Structure formats: C-alpha cells, structure tokens
C-alpha cells in the first residue's frame, strides 16, 4: 500500500513540477492560474442577475442528466480501459494483491471526480446567480464530485465484473437505455399534458418532486436545489446521504470483487495508451484511437501529390462508425434542442454550436501526419502539405457545425439571408481557428504541456480575429453603420481566409524541419 500511495503522490507532484519546469512554462502556468482565478473571483464579485429558481433548477438538472448520460453511454459502449499500460505492467506483475490493485483504482477515483466536478461547477455561479455563495459553491462541488464518484465507481465495478461475466456490460447498457426510455416516456406524457410547450414541460419534469428520487441525477439535483433554497433537513441531508451511501456501497463492492480482470485490463490498456499518446502529442485525445471501426471495406480515390495526405485521412475517416463520425452533429443538435426547450435566443444557440464544433475540432487528428516520414518525403510544397493535412478536419467541422446551424435556423425560423450570413461567419472562424492551432503546433511543438498549448491557441485565435474586427470597424465607419449581414459576413470570410493562408504559410516549417519529427 505504501508503494501505491508513493506512486499516486509522485505522479501528482511531478505534474505540478512540470508546469514550472522552464521560464516559459512558469509564465504560462502563472497566466493560466491567474486567468482561472480571475474568472472565479469575478464570478462571485460581479453583479449577477437573480435567476428564477425554477429555471435554474431545470437547467442544473438538465446539465447533470446530460453529462451523466454521455459519460455512462460512453463507458458502457466502449472499452477504453481503466488502467494505463504502466499500471497494468507494474501492478499485475509486481507483488501486489488484487485488493491492493483495486485500492489503487479506488484512491485514483477521488481526485478524478473532484477535478471533473470542478470543471463542471465552473459555470454554475453564472447559471445559478447570487444565491450561489462561495461556501455553497464548495458544497455544490462536493455534491457533484460525489455524483461523478458514483459514475466512475459503478463503471469500474461493471468493467471488472464484466471481465469474468462477459456480456454483463451489454445487459447493463440495455437496462440503462430502458431507464432513459422511461424518463423520455414520462417527458412525452408531460409534453402532451402541457400542450406541447417544451419549456413548461422541461420545468415540470425536472422540478417535480418525483424527479428527486431518480437515482444519482435526481439525488444530486435535489441536494443542490435544497441547499440553495435552504431546505437542509428534508432535502439536502437525505439527498447527500443517498449519494454518500451509494459511493460507500460501490467502494465496498469494488474492493471485494473476485473477478480476474488482469487480461482484459491489459488488453484495453492499449486503447487507453493510445488516448494518452494523443494527448501527449497534440494536447487532446483523438476519437480515432478508440472508435469502433466499420467491418465493411472502405475505399477512397487517392489524389496525387500532397493531396494524397487528404485522401489518406478521408479513408481513415470512412472506416469509423457513424456515431464516431457524427459526434459533432449530435452535439450541435443537442444545443438546438436545449435552446428551444429553455427558450434561449438563436444567437446564444449559435455561439454554443460554434463553440462546441471548434472544441471538437481540437480532437481531430491533423497533427498525426506531421510526424509521419512518408508525409515529410512527399515531393510537394510544404504549404500544400499543411493545407491538405488540415482540410479533412476543416470539412468535418464545417459540415457538422453548419448542419446544426441550419437545423437551428429552421427551428427558430431565421431569415434565410441571415442564416447564410451566420453560416459564412461560422465557416470563416472554423478555418481561422484550425490554422491558429496549426501555428501553435509549429511554434511550441507537441511535447509542451496542455496548459501551454491551450494558452497559445487562445492567444493566436484572439490575435487572428483582430484583422476581421478592424475590417468590420472600417466597414461600419465607411457605410456609417453596420451594413447588411451578408456583406459583413462575406468580408469576414475573405479576411479570415487571408489570415488563415498567412498562418498556413507561417506553419509550413512543420514539413521542413526534421526536429519536429523527433518530438
């Protein structure tokens, strides 16, 4: 046990040390921490509008349910592993009892839950308004960490047991889908009852007392809303007790499990390793590492020269199953539904779709070709190689985001000309953002910390938006006011295309300097 604790402690300490390993890292870390700290302090010191209790409760419950469903569905449908290759190698062959290995998994769950909880809670001060004070925020963080603890522990338990009783995970997935089916059914009944008023239905559904009894998600919402409403004795305490007890039961169940899970875990650690390698390479995980591949044969017509890079990536894309390929579309459609249900404006939905699509573009694998000797040796200009490497990512993001924007536009009955303008603006920023990422890679390589990569990306994206902003101001001054949307959008597209071309040109060294391949 002493060795296990040493291992966990050292890994966390070294992570922190790494953030201070060079002057650049120190500056970036300090800026990152200050940025986070500033946003956090601002969230509590700035004047926040009072949010309607029912609306905030509904939004909170909706977010908790959505994240829980996404996590469970991803855990139950994929074998992405629970231990890394190093863990599997040392813990399974070293002088450790199975219980010690399980204890390692259990102990590792706590920081993971708190960290996930923290990222989720980050926006809550804005969503819940002034009623969420700092002490209450900390309690909410604790509640949400308990929820994630339950999710992670139940997944680990199922994973370990499934190693012996093959098929258990599939059965549980069916039960989980049936559970969701019941929730959907109840929602539909309420929808009919409210005369197809989505907002009223969502509020009735999530704020009804029976929803408090929905395992995990209902309990969490019950605990938080009771805390905010001051209903401690009859709301907060029983709900929290339910979550704490479930965590305890799951810990005990996992610690006492008898299954021989080493082989399956070792096998799946390869998948997890691929994800970690992707994070190490590009600062994000690539879905292709663990996505299920189609069984039928895929083909593509290979183009010549640098365009062969594009063809290769498209071939790889074609081999992914539909769900993996359409994740961006699903997310965009979710934002549209979310906006419609909670009565948000179309512009808000548009920003969410854009933000979601751009975030997902971070997980593309354009960087993979940068390190490949075959791409390096293709007899074509470096500039064209950069363009063709990135093109599949741009097309994918444009299609997934564009589709959601159009669906949203139709749902909100947006004027077609305005909708086209929104599309053009979105496309222009997708191109700009992705080339800003490429330049980040060019300048700081792949070995840098995630904080450094994220900071540089933000820096470049903000920097490259300046020309479009200047042009917008010039147009406004010249035409004495903002001209029509389509003209503005076209100008932005032209400027952003020019900026992107400049970024691509500056990034061409990726295919010229051999040291990049040594990273």
């Amino acid at each position, binding site marked *: 046990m002493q060795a296990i604790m*040493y291992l966990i402690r050292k890994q966390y300490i070294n992570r922190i040390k790494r953030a201070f390993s060079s002057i650049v890292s120190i500056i970036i870390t300090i800026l990152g921490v200050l940025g986070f700290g500033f946003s956090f302090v601002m969230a509590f010191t700035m004047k926040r509008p009072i949010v309607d209790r029912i609306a905030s409760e509904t939004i909170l419950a909706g977010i908790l349910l959505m994240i829980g469903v996404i996590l469970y569905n991803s855990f139950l449908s994929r074998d992405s592993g629970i231990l*890394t290759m190093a863990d599997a190698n*040392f813990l399974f062959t070293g002088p450790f009892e199975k219980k010690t290995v399980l204890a390692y998994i259990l102990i590792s769950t706590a920081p993971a839950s708190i960290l996930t909880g923290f990222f989720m809670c980050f926006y809550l001060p804005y969503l819940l308004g002034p009623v969420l004070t700092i002490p209450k925020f900390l309690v909410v963080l604790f509640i949400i960490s308990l929820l994630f603890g339950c999710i992670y522990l139940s997944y680990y338990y199922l994973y370990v047991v499934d190693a012996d009783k093959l098929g258990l995970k599939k059965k549980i997935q069916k039960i989980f889908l049936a559970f969701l089916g019941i929730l959907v059914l109840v929602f539909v009944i309420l929808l009919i009852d409210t005369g197809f008023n989505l907002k009223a239905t969502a509020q009735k559904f999530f704020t009804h007392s029976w929803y408090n009894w929905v395992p995990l998600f209902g309990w969490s919402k019950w605990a938080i809303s009771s805390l905010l409403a001051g209903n401690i004795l009859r709301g907060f305490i029983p709900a929290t007790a339910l979550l704490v007890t479930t965590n305890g039961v799951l810990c005990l169940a996992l610690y006492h499990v008898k299954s021989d899970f*080493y082989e399956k875990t070792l096998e799946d650690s390869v998948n997890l390793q691929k994800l970690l390698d992707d994070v*190490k390479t590009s600062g994000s995980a690539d879905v292709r590492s663990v996505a299920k591949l189609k069984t039928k044969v895929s083909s593509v017509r290979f183009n010549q020269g640098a365009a062969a890079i594009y063809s290769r990536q498209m071939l790889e894309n074609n081999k992914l199953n539909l769900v993996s390929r359409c994740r961006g579309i699903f997310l965009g459609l979710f934002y549209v539904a979310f906006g419609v249900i909670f009565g948000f404006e179309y512009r808000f939905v548009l920003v969410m779709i854009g933000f979601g699509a751009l975030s997902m573009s971070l997980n593309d694998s354009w960087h993979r070709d940068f390190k490949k000797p075959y791409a390096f040796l293709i007899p074509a200009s470096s500039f064209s190689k950069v363009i063709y490497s990135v093109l599949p990512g741009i097309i994918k993001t444009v299609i997934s985001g564009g589709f959601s924007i159009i669906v949203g536009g139709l749902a909100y009955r947006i004027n077609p000309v305005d909708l086209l303008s929104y599309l053009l603006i979105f496309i222009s920023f997708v191109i700009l953002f992705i080339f800003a990422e490429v330049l980040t890679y060019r300048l700081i390589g792949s070995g840098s910390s995630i904080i450094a990569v994220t900071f540089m990306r933000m820096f470049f994206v903000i920097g490259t938006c300046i020309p479009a902003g200047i042009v917008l101001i010039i147009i406004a001054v010249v035409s004495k006011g903002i001209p029509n949307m389509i003209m503005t959008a076209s100008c932005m597209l032209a400027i952003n295309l020019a900026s992107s071309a400049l970024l691509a040109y500056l990034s061409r060294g990726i295919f010229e300097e051999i040291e990049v391949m040594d990273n």
Partner: protein
Amino acid sequence: MILVTNLTKQYKKIKAVDGINLCANPGEVTILLGPNGAGKSTTIKSIAGLLKFEGEITIWNHLNKTLEAKKLFGYIPETPALYDLLTPWEHAEFIAKAYKLEDGWKEKIKSIFERLEIFDKKDKYVRELSKGMTQKLSVALALLSEPKSVLFDEPLVGLDPKAINEMLKILEELKADGKSVLVSTHIIDTINDIWDRAYIMDKGKIVCDITRDQLQGRDLKTMFFELTEGVKECKQ
C-alpha cells in the same frame, strides 16, 4: 525454476498456445524461439500472470499468480510500459517500496544504471527518454529486486550494440548466480552463444525442445528454419 504444464491459451476462436510444456531450470538460460505469431509472447505473458489460461504454471513451486511467486520473478515486457511522469530514480524507489527492499537498494540501482549507461538520466522524466533508454530502464527495474527467475520478452529489440553486449553479459551473470532465465526472442544470432535450452514454437505448439549438448554441432538457426518452415521434424 519456471515450470509450465499443459499451457493452453485461447483468444476467442484462435488457439494462441496449444498445450505446451516447458521448464526453465535454475542456472540456465532457456530461450523461446519462434516466428511472429508463434505464441511466444502469449506464453511469457501467461507465465507473468497477465493472462487467463488453462494448465498450470509454477515459479519455484508457487503458482504463478500468487504473491509468493510474484516476489520471485522479474518481467521485462516486449514494449517498455513505464510511467511518463516519473523519473528512472522514482521508478526504482517505487519498486523498492513495492518489494520492500532493504536500504541498500540505492547503491544497487546506481550500479545497474551505471552499467546500462542511464545513470545520468536518472532524474529525467521517462517521457523525455529515447526508446532504447526506456528499454534499459525496464531491464534495470526488473533486476533491482534480485529475482530468482527472470522473464525477458524480446529484450534485445531497440538496444544499441553496446547495450546488447551488456544485456548478454547480464544474462550470463544471472545464469552464473543460479537464476532461471527465460528469454523469448527471434534474434537467434545474437543469443546463440549463451543459451542452454531452446524451445522452438510454431503455431502455438512447441515443435522442438533441445539442449545445447543435444545439438551436437548442428546449427540452431538452420534447425529453426527447417522446423518452422515444415521441412523436418525435431531430431535430438
């Protein structure tokens, strides 16, 4: 010693290892030869307790998955699997704690690191080391606990010529110390001078079990090709 009795390992429809028996005696270097996909790594992983299998495997008379057995063997995997954010020295400290080693472990690992020429890298993160360095570190860590049996899965892949020489010397020393050493490899030429017993595997079965004395002037490499290409049967 490592004793494998009637080991069978099936992956869904494929029988990777089919009822094999083998023994790695103390004071001997036993090699497991075979083409790609012959079942060598599966055998080694089964012995290391990483896989479920049918049959029985004992290490110095303890079933291989027991704590007693695990204290007695060292395992060097085919691909080094190390913690990116730990330094070589921290890895060694972890091993020292895991195996509850005496205070002298620091001197011991220092001499192993120096021998494998990675002492100057002891405070670097593993993610900053080259592939060869991580392979050397993997070997060093397996030797730190002074195991009575050592399992090497393709130990020479990725090493430079000097490190290969050092590795061969280490194998000889382990043998001289009375340890049982089991090496899975397909690089016959390099290991030709140090082996004592060879098992040649093909399609999940052992097609030849031969000692150096039984070879009687014949060439192991020629024999390997004859057997794995189905020309001859093993003649001892």
